[in-house]
């Protein structure tokens, strides 16, 4: 079910209007369970904005600001330590052998604004990423890339994780993948997100099938 306030929140976010977004959230949650407010209001609004970006209708700065505003507002009603936050799948996000952090920041904000908690590994080299993902028993590993060599390096990540016996799902995103539809298949990723908000769907798909079949 969607909250009747989705249009209003979408407009407020696109206008980068924090105050209006906050009021909108208050009236939607209205004493009910916060996570429900998040799922029926914040997720659909962010999702809509993400899709509009993929189609060229809104700008990346608006996706970024929407993510940031929602992350902040949701932290107020669902603090990081809240037991209602979603901790499954065990997720982490990283930038692999690249210097460009914005994509990761946006996806991280959007997932947290959707009630998820996840690890942020920062910008790391391959070996570190494999070790950390194995140590933390990560089930869904999100990798953001901007340069083509980084995108191609995902192939080595996927095989290293497989070799170590992990069935962690590697989900990729970032410009090289959005510019070339099938590149994610070339590198053996589990899936790719064309827009930051696709991460929400991928996480919830994991919850639906319990990370079952690859």
């Amino acid at each position, binding site marked *: 079910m969607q909250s009747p306030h989705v249009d209003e929140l979408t407009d407020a976010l696109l206008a*980068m209007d924090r105050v209006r977004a906050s009021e909108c959230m208050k009236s939607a949650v209205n004493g009910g369970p916060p996570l429900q407010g998040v799922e029926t209001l914040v997720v659909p609004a962010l999702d809509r904005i993400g899709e509009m970006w993929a189609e*060229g209708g*809104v*700008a*990346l*700065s*608006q996706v*970024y*600001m929407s993510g940031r505003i929602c992350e902040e507002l949701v932290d107020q009603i669902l603090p990081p330590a809240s037991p209602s936050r979603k901790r499954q799948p065990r997720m982490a996000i990283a930038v692999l*052998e*690249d*210097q*460009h*952090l*914005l994509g990761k*920041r946006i996806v991280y904000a959007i997932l947290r604004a959707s009630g998820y908690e996840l690890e942020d590994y920062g910008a790391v080299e391959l070996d570190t990423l494999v070790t950390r993902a194995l140590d933390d028993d990560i089930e869904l590993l999100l990798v953001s890339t901007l*340069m*083509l*060599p980084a995108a*191609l390096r995902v192939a080595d990540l996927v095989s290293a994780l497989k070799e170590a016996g992990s069935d962690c799902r590697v989900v990729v995103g970032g*410009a*090289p993948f959005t*510019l*070339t539809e*099938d*590149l994610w298949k*070339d590198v053996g990723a589990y899936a790719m997100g064309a827009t930051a908000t696709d991460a929400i769907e991928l996480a919830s798909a994991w919850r639906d099938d319990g990370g079952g079949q690859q």
Partner: protein
Amino acid sequence: MTSATLSSLDNLLRTLEHREPERVPLILMLTMHGAKELGMELREYYARADCVAEGQLALQERYRHDVAVAFGYAAAEVEARGGDVVFRPNGPPVAGRPILSGPEDIRAMAQVDVQNTPCLARVLDSTRMLADAIGGQILIVGIVVSPFSAPVMQLGFEAYLDLLHSGDPAFDRLMEINQRFCIDWANAQLAAGANAICYFDPLSSTTMLPLEKLRDTGFPIARATIAEINGPAGIHLASGRVLPSVDDLATTGAAMIGVSALEDLSEVKAACGDRLAVLGNLNGIELARCSPEGAREMVRETIRKGAPGGGFLLSDNHGEIPYQVSDEVLRAVVEAGREYGRYPIREDL
């Protein structure tokens, strides 16, 4: 009618006048492949002005295309201010940690002496060498990052977006300093022998920022900067979308625009009319993974959509062909470009 009577440069100038030239100019932006020609690592290649010039000439010999570029990498603009550059063996170097961490750093910025800063002086040296070798025959293009886009490298993208939305006057100060640099840097390249400047300004794409914001920032900055560049300029949004802002981009003073592979070239061409020549829009990343046949097909489709009527240059959509694109694929692009790009363009293409 005789065939191939125009020189590479004259043929190109004719298309920029929105007339049909003899053949579609082929602009292969090969900024890294010269290192392969010389069997060098990218890092040592970029460190030597003579090698970059030699690499460009070898590529010219191999592909007989219509451009030479002395450009090394965008991050040289932050290297010039003491920033780190991160080199990787199989792709372009990129800027390391941001050199500016806040408004105080912006206020403290000084001007850069473009002639006497090693990483920039090397590009000027390569440009002179190219001008000596092929000046007047083949287009030599100089490259600058716009004052408005450069802060992504100077501050980091997130901090720059925050600054842009903050209303802090440090933004204006940063634009002023960057604009002075950009003009000096462009004019130094022209004086060294470049024939034209490609002004890279992806932040002025609606992919990145909303149109209303760009009307207050990116577009007027482009207009003011390009006006002081002493030569013809093209504007390239590095595969950011152009269609929603063609009318604005047409007023920046640029004669040409680089088009994203995410857009329909016929639509862009129609929107530009005689105001802007179009450059594009082969998907460089796709070229890194497709077969020679796939590349031929891409070229055919691109020429079919872009070439009729002139005002069109065949190129990739980013302004730089990835290092991973093979010689085989590049040859296929060149051959298909020659075959399909002869004017008048075949109607059944």
